[in-house]
């Protein structure tokens, strides 16, 4: 039987998620024996033609040309998996979605005529259908291997959708919020990193994006009421690497809308 053809695609991103594949020092050569790495620009000059059995897509859509390119990638791919916060939520570059785009563009582009870019950064799923989304900025390489092998064996990937809090408990960490009063995004953040930040004595800043059905309203209320965090801190944590994820975007807009209604003085 022919080996399954794997392709890795890049859109607007930092390359960190596809790098996770090259960081699999112990598994990389074995993986290359199992699948045909048919298209992976960062790692190989070879380009085998599609269609591909499995496409991994990193990065968000920020140009008209990329909007067309992702449709072509979808056409060529039997399965399409998005990897990372850029591809699943628009990435940090989605912060432009909250700005007055015209003003933003005028400040950034001294010579706008040289550059083609959209006013938004959108996830891959806003443009084509996606078979699976792996969250994280960056993704976790163990989870990536799990997803690849699940698709190759046509079984569902074992990726839990609970919160970072559960991972923290599994690691036996002391809760940084309860014990030290450190604001932590853990309760609303998707598991996958292994609760690294609390393990290193800091609060989670949400780089894995929202967990399934997060209660973001309650979290920000507690941050402000019980921990006395500036509201800006809540908004800043909702608006970083997963600012475009619907659950985070909704809550951050609720805060900023309230702030503008109350004249920008919301602090106690």
């Amino acid at each position, binding site marked *: 039987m022919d080996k399954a053809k794997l392709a890795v695609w890049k859109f607007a991103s930092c390359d960190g998620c596809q790098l996770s594949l090259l960081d699999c020092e112990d598994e990389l050569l074995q993986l290359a024996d199992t699948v045909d790495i048919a298209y992976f620009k960062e790692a190989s*000059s070879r380009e085998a033609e599609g269609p591909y059995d499995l496409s991994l897509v990193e990065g968000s859509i920020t140009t008209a040309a990329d909007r067309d390119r992702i449709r072509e990638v979808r056409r060529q791919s039997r399965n399409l998996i998005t990897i990372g916060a850029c591809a699943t939520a628009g990435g940090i570059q989605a912060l432009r979605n909250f700005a007055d785009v015209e003003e933003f563009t005028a400040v950034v582009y001294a010579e706008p005529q040289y550059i083609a870019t959209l006013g938004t950064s959108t996830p891959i799923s806003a443009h084509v259908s996606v078979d699976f989304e792996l969250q994280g900025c960056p993704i976790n390489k163990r989870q990536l291997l799990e997803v690849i092998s699940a698709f190759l064996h046509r079984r569902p990937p074992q990726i839990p959708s609970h919160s970072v809090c559960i991972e923290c408990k599994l690691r036996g960490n002391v809760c940084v919020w309860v014990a030290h009063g450190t604001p932590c995004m853990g309760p609303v953040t998707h598991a996958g990193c292994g609760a690294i930040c609390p393990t290193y004595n800091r609060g989670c800043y949400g780089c894995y994006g929202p967990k399934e059905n997060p209660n973001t309203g309650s979290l920000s209320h507690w941050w402000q009421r019980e921990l006395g965090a500036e509201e800006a801190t809540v908004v800043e944590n909702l608006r970083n690497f997963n600012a475009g994820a619907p659950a985070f975007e909704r809550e951050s807009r609720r805060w900023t809308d309230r702030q503008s209604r109350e004249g920008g003085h919301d602090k106690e």
Partner: protein
Amino acid sequence: MTKSKKSKTIKVDYLARVEGEGALYIRYDDSGVQDVQLKIFEPPRFFEAFLRGRDYMEAPDITARICGICPVAYQMSALHAMEDALGLTPTPELRALRRLIYCGEWIESHVLHIYMLHAPDFLGYDSAVDMARDHPRVVQEGLQIKKTGNAIVNLLGGREVHPINVRVGGFYRIPTLEELHKLGEELLTARGLAEQMVRWAASLPFPKFERSDGDKYEFVALTHPGEYPMNEGRITSTCGLDISAREYDRHFREEHVPHTNALHSLLRERGPYMVGPMARYNLNAEHLSATAKKVAREVGFPTFCNNPFQSIVVRSIEVLHAFDEAIEIINQYRAPQAPYMPSTAQAGTGYAATEAPRGLLYHRYSLDEDGKITDAKIVPPTSQNQKTIEDDLRIMLPKYLHLPEDKLQAQCEQAIRNYDPCISCATHFLKIHLDRNGRDNP
């Protein structure tokens, strides 16, 4: 590649084995090379714009996301600039730990480039995976060395890509003695492999490449009186530049050229220059570790390197040095009194430059009294090398114009990979600071 009657072009629409999205366009005819354009079409991501309004504590986490391959470099430059603005000087113990994590990044990034991106060019393969079929041991050992670099970043940073543990003033958590010793043992085991790597890299077949006297490189790197530069030092060059990071903007400027999304960085006085391993080596070889010096001598490598194709050897020498340095730091380790020094927000402007694996990385931030960023400027290494890369191609090509077109194209791509250009990084300074006179600021 396309052919017209007289003038011919080389077009590589999407460069492989580089980080990010870039293209190459060269026009030439029988009389020589007419035009060389390295195009960076990686879409801009606006970092300098959206950093404005963010808290100074967030800068290391946010700027890390500029590049997945050298996040530590962004974190280090960002937090040093913040500390400069806040008047904070980390203790020698904290400084040593920062050097340790930077050693980890140098190792993983250099080794990735050496084995996965660059070596296949010299040996005629499309990728490291193809190369592994004929040279399994070489590739496996490479992966082993890289893994040790990752282990350093993992321990000090919490994870390899976008570490979470560094903060303005120090670290969130410092490693335990036991963790450090375990890491030290791993390093000792892999150091032997790193030594062999230098010998192997030095034995690769190098294209001859020389620049004439009028065309000499100006090498720019940090220089520090007591150590091989990494986290700090003065910005120096082989043409006599010797300034602090604070003075950077006065000596360097950025130029917007239509064919690329990245600005070209130039010395105001002299124009193009080169940053990166060759520049560091040429300005600081005397500060390499004793083993790194010894092995370099044994393989007959000069203390001044002028052939960019040999940058792969310089990288491997730097990897060996980073191993020695990391082992030394662990052996001399004294725990900091506290994981970090507390800081309070205040208005000010901070400047810093560090040595990313690919070369000098400059950050400048202004803060308001609440510690919110009001202005950010980031100049990554690739923008600084862009013009020099184009010049290399212009100088190299006439010698190869007789080659069949696919060979010629491969030669050009290899010359670009000499620089390990990091194209994702290179797009962040699309923003030009225009002052009233229309010059790049300040």
